[in-house]
């Protein structure tokens, strides 16, 4: 087990290095730089000497290759560089905002799992029923709603119109509900559909027929024999959705003024604050990788067929 975890962690290294490289190259080739973005801000009349000094200080004059090597070297010791904008270490900037992002991501995924999985189960046990049909229509529409639009609608309905919840900001649980819903509805819908399909697949399996022939109640058949096997099939979807959620949160965070990585990323992209963007993206990628590693470990724990192999 420990060896497996170690192996997975080691496997992450080239992925992260690759992502760092791609982001780096991308920001080197797209037009615009931190300094030109400052000038766009209306500070066009900057002294050429000052511009020259800034370029040197920020290391923008060095060849791209040199800058990449330097960046990767820093990365090894956990240094994400210094933000162009705030002149603070990027690790500190991220540290200030990671908590809020994690809070939102976990809340959204918690909602998606707590609602989506039971809904899929319920629908599968009564295929073709009114509830099944209604749940699946809701699930499909939930899947196709853009998060930004959904967020706006939620904001309008629950904050502007009903005045039940604050429309933006950070604080108690009441601030968390709307952004978590906006972020969680689509993975919830996908989980409901995947769960339904998995349960329908498992419920027709031979071993379920065996379970019935043993004389146990349908409730016991479902909770002891169907549920675990079906959840095993759902686990992959949970991992992929969960992993991608922090990246998807960017839009929602911006919309609800949620003080997470989203705001940092958007502002940094606009101003070409390359170290901050790099850092933000790397954290999101790392989150994806860690979640998927945890899912793989969960498989090993749950499924004896994988445990052996």
């Amino acid at each position: 087990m420990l060896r497996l975890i170690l192996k997975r962690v080691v496997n992450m290294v080239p992925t992260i290095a690759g992502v760092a490289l791609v982001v780096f190259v991308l920001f080197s080739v797209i037009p615009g730089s931190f300094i030109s973005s400052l000038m766009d801000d209306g500070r066009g009349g900057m002294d050429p000497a000052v511009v020259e000094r800034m370029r040197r200080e920020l290391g923008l004059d060095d060849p791209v290759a040199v800058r990449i090597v330097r960046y990767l070297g820093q990365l090894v010791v956990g240094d994400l560089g210094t933000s162009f904008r705030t002149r603070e270490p990027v690790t500190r900037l991220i540290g200030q905002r990671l908590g809020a992002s994690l809070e939102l991501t976990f809340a959204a995924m918690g909602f998606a799992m707590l609602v989506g999985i039971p809904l899929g189960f319920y629908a599968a046990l009564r295929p073709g029923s009114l509830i099944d049909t209604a749940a699946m229509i809701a699930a499909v529409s939930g899947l196709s709603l853009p998060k930004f639009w959904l967020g706006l609608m939620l904001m309008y309905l629950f904050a502007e119109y009903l005045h039940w919840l604050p429309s933006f900001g950070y604080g108690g649980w009441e601030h968390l509900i709307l952004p978590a819903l906006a972020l969680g509805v689509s993975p919830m819908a996908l989980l409901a559909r995947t769960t339904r399909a998995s349960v329908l697949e498992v419920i027709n399996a031979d071993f379920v027929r065996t379970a019935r022939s043993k004389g146990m109640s349908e409730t016991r058949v479902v909770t002891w024999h169907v549920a675990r096997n079906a959840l095993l099939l759902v686990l992959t979807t949970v991992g992929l959705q969960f992993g991608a959620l922090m990246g998807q949160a960017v839009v929602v965070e911006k919309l609800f003024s949620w003080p997470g990585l989203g705001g940092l990323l958007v502002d940094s992209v606009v101003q070409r604050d390359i170290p901050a963007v790099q850092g933000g993206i790397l954290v999101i990628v790392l989150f994806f990788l860690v979640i998927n590693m945890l899912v793989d470990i969960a498989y090993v724990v749950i499924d004896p067929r994988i445990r052996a192999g």
Partner: protein
Amino acid sequence: MNPATGDTAVLEISELDIALAGDKGPTQLVDRVGFSIPRGQAFGLVGESGCGKSITALAVMGLLRAPLMRSSGQIMLDGRNIAGASEAEMRKLRGRHVSMIFQEPMTALNPLQPIGRQIAEMFVLHEGATWKEADARAIEALRHVRVPAPERRARDYPHQLSGGMRQRVMIAIALACRPKLLVADEPTTALDVTVQAEIVELMATVCAAQGTAILMISHDLGLVARMCTEIAVMYAGRIVEQGTAGDLLRAPRHPYTQGLIGAVPRLGARAAGGRRKLAEIEGVVPAPASFPGGCRFHPRCSRATGVCHTDVPLAKPRPGGGVVCCHHDG
């Protein structure tokens, strides 16, 4: 009731119809099937694939699920009519009075549960045992079906076992609560030939030892003949001939039975010895929606005449005992 002993049969099926519900009304899959199995006896149900053997078995277990349904007829399990039984009553019968082994040992066990637990579940369900007691008894049950090193094996998962071993586990589950009847639906069809004989022998001895009757279902007449006292031959949802195993093999009267024996090389050579050359039957079992009228076997029968196309042959007594349904038997 057996008139000779006054004993109720373990299983008594009469005029059983099974239908498949569909958009264009029901299709009848099993037509007026009836037979009875005395206590402790092995009874064989034989026929090619698609004849309705498995759904008959599921009906006995009360496990037909929509769109399949028992549309008429009686099934008496140990003197109790299961038609009137509620689902809760059926659950108490299942596993305890009648249990079932399926064709596919590879998929019949829960892949996420150790096999010992899957046997132990029977004691917990039907005998109110604690899991601790049940786990211990599961090891005994494994020993009973001659699984080597049962203490260690009990903790294995299905994927760690060979097909033959898994079928032994299925037998252990099915016989755990000493049921009165074991329904074995093609229990060896998916196994290696070498393992087949072992499993059949195991089933026969364990059942004989604890007085469990067997409903042995197979497409292989030779196999069934070796272990059963009485055999019913089924074709396209109907029983076409029934009699004692020895007599049916020695002197089959229905052309379909004769064809089945022709399809069993070793036994066929003996049975047909000098009497009549029997080829394998041409063609396949028709789909239930297109069962022909009259005798359903007529499109494949070399003896078929006009009456076979129009009239369903009724059951008549065979010279050697039992019944045969054919206009031109012999």
